[in-house]
């Protein structure tokens, strides 16, 4: 590949070697990993754990799609199917989407990006990984013991009085996972506030850090409300009390309010870090500072702030008062604006750039398109009258999969491909990874576009069997899911392959400007040989050029 097509700049493979001492080989043995305080090692632990749970959740998704291949309830029984989608939801939301980017990429990169040695509280960081596993095992335990069929929303009074499955176990798992998430967020906020390198002012921070900061605020303030709600559900279930049971004077809608007070901001916890990844990737591969840096930074914070004011749009038809519905619908429209700003700012970042199309950029383009669709269909659902027809159908399933899978997962993969050389010191196969990006994109659209149509036709979500006339679209969707599955398996293979056989990446294969690219790959245990002094803005490619030209030694 000629130099005009790509900015990838690898060292001479004949002489290049991985650095002698890195965070990976600093200490040896299993214990050195299990007791580590190093944010990079914890990030790698998370990466492995999250991948594990992702494929479990994905397996459930596959089973769901397989059952929906035919209108008849033929593959599994109804309660089994219900357990499948409940486990799919719980695992994907709490064990994959919420921690995905923050706990892996955020953990790995935030300290490096702001020029410090580690997160503020390394032990709490490790604790949050153990809590993640504890919560994950409890959730898996609920599955092994016989499953849970509440759906991930734990709707009362169904979950409290009408099911005989392991609701309390699953709720306990989610409760523990909540604390894992709280500690991650708390660590990020403190680190970003207190640990920035000299000269790293707020407006010199990469947008990746900004978006994680916004998401962390949501984690810290939102998650405890979910925790107390789940405690109440468990107590009500164990003692039959009735805070959420209308026959005993409780209000089932109170549960909805408290649940969505967390679970709507949780959507932003999931997508904001992804947006941070996209900012980095698009800037790097168009060799330009992100268009309107300040606007993008503030739109992250605005999303976090507004995110707390819109939760009742999940309840428009659930008996929330009409006036309240008006207020929440209006605020929902407002929260859509910062996302629109981001999309356009990213698009205009490309303008007058010098664009190359490496794998992370392909994923980022996928993100832009899919997130636009996902965001716009969110406006459908935020509009009160439209919501009546669309909610609780496959339209909403398609909508949040476009945002979560099309947005978040694309961003996650973009980020993994972008920082993989930094994390491991090696490059993956460029052609295979591009193939995977394209496969994922095609598979995704094939899976979820038909679901929009199904939704408008009225096919309800969480249906085990459905009327005949919906079959064609469901077959398309299942076919797409197969392609999508292949798209996700591919990176697993070539990334694993690259660990041993990939080309040596060198410090800065993409010639990116972040502090993380100025140090060796993989980094040292404490990232920098000496604390960097930051004297340039984020995404300053002229500074990088100047520095490269005058480079005597690398920083770290």
């Amino acid at each position, binding site marked *: 590949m000629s130099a005009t097509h790509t900015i990838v700049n690898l060292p001479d493979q004949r002489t290049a070697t991985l650095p002698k001492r890195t965070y990976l080989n600093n200490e040896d043995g299993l214990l050195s990993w299990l007791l580590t305080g190093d944010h990079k090692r914890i990030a790698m632990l998370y990466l492995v754990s999250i991948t594990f749970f992702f494929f479990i959740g994905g397996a459930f998704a596959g089973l769901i799609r397989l059952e929906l291949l035919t209108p008849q309830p033929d593959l599994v029984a109804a309660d089994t199917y219900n357990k499948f989608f409940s486990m799919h939801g719980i695992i994907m939301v709490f064990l994959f989407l919420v921690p995905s980017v923050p706990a892996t990429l955020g953990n790995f990169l935030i300290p490096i990006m702001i020029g410090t040695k580690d997160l*503020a509280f390394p032990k709490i960081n490790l604790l949050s990984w153990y809590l993640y596993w504890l919560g994950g095992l409890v959730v898996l335990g609920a599955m092994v013991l016989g499953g849970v069929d509440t759906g991930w929303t734990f709707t009362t009074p169904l979950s409290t009085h009408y099911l005989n499955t392991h609701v309390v176990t699953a709720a306990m798992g989610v409760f523990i996972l909540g604390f894992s998430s709280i500690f991650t967020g708390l660590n990020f906020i403190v680190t970003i506030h207190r640990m920035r390198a000299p000269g790293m002012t707020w407006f010199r921070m990469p947008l990746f850090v900004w978006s994680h900061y916004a998401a962390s605020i949501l984690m810290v303030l939102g998650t405890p409300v979910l925790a*107390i709600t789940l405690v109440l559900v468990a107590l009500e279930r164990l003692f039959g009390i009735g805070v959420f049971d209308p026959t005993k004077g409780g209000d089932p809608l109170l549960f909805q309010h408290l649940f969505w007070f967390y679970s709507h901001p949780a959507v932003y916890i999931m997508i904001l870090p992804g947006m941070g990844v996209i900012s980095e990737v698009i800037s790097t591969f168009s060799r330009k500072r992100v268009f309107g840096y300040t606007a993008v930074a503030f739109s992250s914070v605005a999303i976090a702030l507004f995110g707390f004011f819109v939760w009742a749009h999940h309840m428009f038809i659930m008996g929330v008062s009409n006036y309240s519905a008006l207020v929440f619908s209006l605020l929902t429209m407002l929260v859509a604006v910062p996302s629109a700003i981001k999309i356009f700012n990213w698009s205009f970042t490309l303008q007058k750039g010098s664009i190359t199309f490496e794998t992370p950029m392909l994923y980022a383009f996928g993100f832009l398109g899919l997130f636009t669709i996902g965001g716009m269909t969110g406006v459908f659902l935020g509009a009160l009258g439209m919501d009546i027809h669309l909610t609780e159908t496959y339209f909403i399933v398609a909508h949040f999969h476009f945002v979560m899978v099309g947005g978040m997962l694309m961003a996650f993969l973009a980020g993994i491909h972008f920082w993989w050389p930094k994390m491991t010191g090696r490059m993956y196969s460029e052609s295979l990874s591009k193939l995977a990006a394209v496969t994922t994109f095609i598979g995704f659209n094939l899976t979820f576009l038909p679901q929009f149509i199904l939704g408008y036709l009225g096919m309800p979500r969480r249906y085990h069997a459905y009327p005949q006339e919906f079959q064609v679209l469901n077959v398309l969707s299942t076919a797409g899911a197969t392609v999508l599955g292949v798209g996700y398996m591919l990176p697993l293979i070539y990334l694993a392959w690259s660990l041993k056989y990939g080309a040596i990446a060198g410090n800065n294969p993409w010639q990116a400007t972040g502090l993380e690219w100025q140090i060796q790959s993989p980094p040292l245990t404490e990232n920098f040989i000496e604390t960097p002094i930051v004297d340039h803005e984020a995404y300053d490619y002229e500074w990088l050029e100047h520095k490269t030209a005058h480079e005597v030694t690398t920083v770290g």
Partner: protein
Amino acid sequence: MDNAIVATHPHTHETAVPAEHEHVALPQHRHHFETQEQQREAGTFGMWLFLLTEIMFFGGLFFAYLLYRNWYNPAFVAASNQLSIPLGTANTAILISSGFFMALGVWAAEVKKKNLLVLFLVLTTVFGLAFLGVKYFEYKEKWELHHIPGASFDVSQFINPHAYGLKEEPLAPDMAQKTQVFFFLYFAMTGMHALHMIIGIGLLFWLTWRANRGEFSAGYVAPIENFGLYWHFVDIVWIFLFPLLYLINRHPV
């Protein structure tokens, strides 16, 4: 913006601690922090963020209380009048005292008086335990009266108060059932509060032991300060629980 070259950083962390900071090399200084000051402030800030999550955690319960109190006011009045004001007031005073000694403990640590610190921590623990003791007797009484929500919950006292020697107005049967909602919230809120106290007392034992070894008498006071924040937060929760659960329905009509 100019294209400056990355200057070599003048400090490494050994030299980064300026002279005006007196504790240059405490063993507790974790070296990923640039300075002691930074470490202390990060710790405090982290603790405050954790307390923020606690506010929201109790926040859900407080909202449930607000809602149901407005819906079922007569039941809440009648049920709340079953709580003992003398015990509640005593407990408030006990808890405030415990908080007071905790604050003094922080001071003792800051001025490096080891024996005083240990004394104050012990006093904090004693008052904390006293609070839990009083709470135990309150709970026990509710147990005997079948006022614990659940299968054995009994509303007869509210339907027919005169038979129990109470001066309350009787409640209609449907409203009397709602006293269970009050008692559930009462037990959920005070129980969650008591759980925080128990965790706190566990930590206090540990801190007292460490203080006794002199760990906090050389300028490293972060654990004491941060635990103090936690303990005071638990106080504040009670400061709100006390009027809401015991007092606001008390006045004669």
